[in-house]
């Protein structure tokens, strides 16, 4: 009984205090909601960037991306030159009734043709209308927000790092291909050329093993297999 009276007074005080504070109601259709950054509303297609490589369609966990394309031949520009072929995108459609908004297609697209847009108001009365063709997907592009700024002290973005790289050394290995600088073995063969200044992407531990190490490891594995066989 002693805790009852403070309790019921507390109840009254709480409700009155709530009444004096602003409400939490989101007046959604009248006022746009405040969405968090990187909201996953709809997938926008930048058609010019798409090469019909089908990576997105193949990675899609529920197979909701449909791509049709054909090849076109571009005649050689110089006499005696080789005709080139390029893919032309005929159809790019996402079935949003199947899409689970995992974003894998956007992750895998090597050419930045797919983007998240925060727009979410594309409900339909007929489920079949949720298949959005490429013109509709392209219309979402203006709504794609600019990429979020990088964190403080983060590494440069990949494209910036690439453009800031010093120009490649003039002396190349025979065959016109640049040496694979990440491989120490390859570097050893071209010991004469100046080594690139830094390899920021790979920590030292990740360098490949030497040939001697590889041989030793292979013999170890063979030994283990033999022992395992005997044990059985």
């Amino acid at each position, binding site marked *: 009984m002693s805790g009852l009276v403070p309790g*019921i007074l507390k*109840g*009254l005080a709480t*409700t009155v205090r*709530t009444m004096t504070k602003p*409400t*939490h*109601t989101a*007046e959604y259709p009248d006022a746009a909601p405040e969405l968090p950054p990187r909201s996953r509303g709809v997938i926008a297609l930048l058609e010019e960037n798409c090469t019909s490589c089908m990576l997105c369609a193949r990675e899609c966990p529920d197979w909701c991306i449909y791509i049709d394309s054909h090849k076109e031949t571009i005649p050689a520009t110089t006499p005696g030159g080789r005709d080139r072929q390029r893919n032309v995108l005929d159809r790019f459609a996402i079935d949003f009734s199947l899409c689970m908004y995992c974003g894998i297609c956007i992750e895998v697209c090597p050419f930045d043709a797919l983007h998240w847009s925060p727009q979410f108001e594309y409900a339909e009365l007929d489920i079949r209308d949720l298949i959005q063709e490429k013109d509709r997907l392209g219309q979402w592009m203006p709504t794609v927000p600019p990429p979020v700024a990088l964190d403080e002290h983060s590494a440069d973005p990949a494209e910036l790092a690439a453009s800031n790289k010093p120009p490649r050394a003039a002396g190349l290995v025979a065959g016109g291909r640049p040496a694979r600088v990440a491989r120490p073995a390859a570097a050893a063969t071209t010991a004469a050329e100046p080594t690139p200044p830094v390899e920021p992407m790979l920590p030292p531990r990740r360098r490949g093993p030497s040939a001697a190490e590889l041989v030793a490891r292979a013999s170890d594995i063979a030994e283990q297999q033999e022992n395992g066989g005997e044990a059985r």
Partner: protein
Amino acid sequence: MTALEVTLRAVAVLAAFLVLPLLVGQTEHKVMAHMQGRLGPMYAGGFHGWAQLVADGVKFVQKEDLTPAAADKRVFRFAPAIALVPYLVALSAIPIHPGVQAATLPASAVFVLAIIGVGIIGTLMAGWASANKYALLGAMRAAAQLLSYELPMVLAVSSVCLAAGSLSLAGIVTQWHWWWLAWQAPGAVVFLTAAVAELQRPPFDMPVADSEIVFGAYTEYTGLRFAFFLLSEYAGIVVMSFLFAVLFLGGWHGPYAGALGWLWTVAKAFAIAIVIIWLRVAWPRLREDQLQRLAWLVLVPLALGQLLLTGAVIAVTGS
């Protein structure tokens, strides 16, 4: 009193009876919403949803009027009227201004208390005639609640009547002095608690406890008849608020009472209505046994103590 005057008074009471409960209902919508951090109705009528209850009424009218096959059909259909009309009658006996009340009665306090008790018969009829166990349980709870809370309520009112030396509501207001606020305070608390219990409003809404017995006696009702039960609840809030304002807050007493007395009465009643809404928002529902315990072990002794206090003060002052 001519026939014209009688008609005018009846129409005025009817208008108040139809408008004030809607006003209280709309206030409840908005006050409850803001107490819960919401906005409440915002669309109907355009400005902050002022016509929400009108829209609700239109919806209720459009609904099908169902009567269960096993129901006692005549009683079932008649019950909402029994629940509603007593509050209309009670409203007519409440004085709002010096000399202004729809029906002038010599013992209006007794009359109002008696007629309010009739409303419960509507709930009982509804519960019994519905042929539904939840409805019956709800009706029984309502009846038990009325029985236990009518006594403290009558005791609290009798204390005020004793203080004023009058059984007429207008007489009580005439005799009222500001220091009655302190003198009759325990009685006021008892009256308000009993009033909320009689109205079956939270925290005393066991007769319609939706988590236990669906919607109590009103489970089988639809459409307009259901709306009548809801209207009777809000009309009950209006009547109880006016009664509280008249009995304990001095009715029309206030600055410029000669001209603005009616406004004072309405303002006090409205404040009490907001308190009744506030209690609903702030407190959870009591259990049925806690309800009975509160009535018999707290409210009745408190009301008897108030009666004793009133009698002692009168005996000492000799007024």
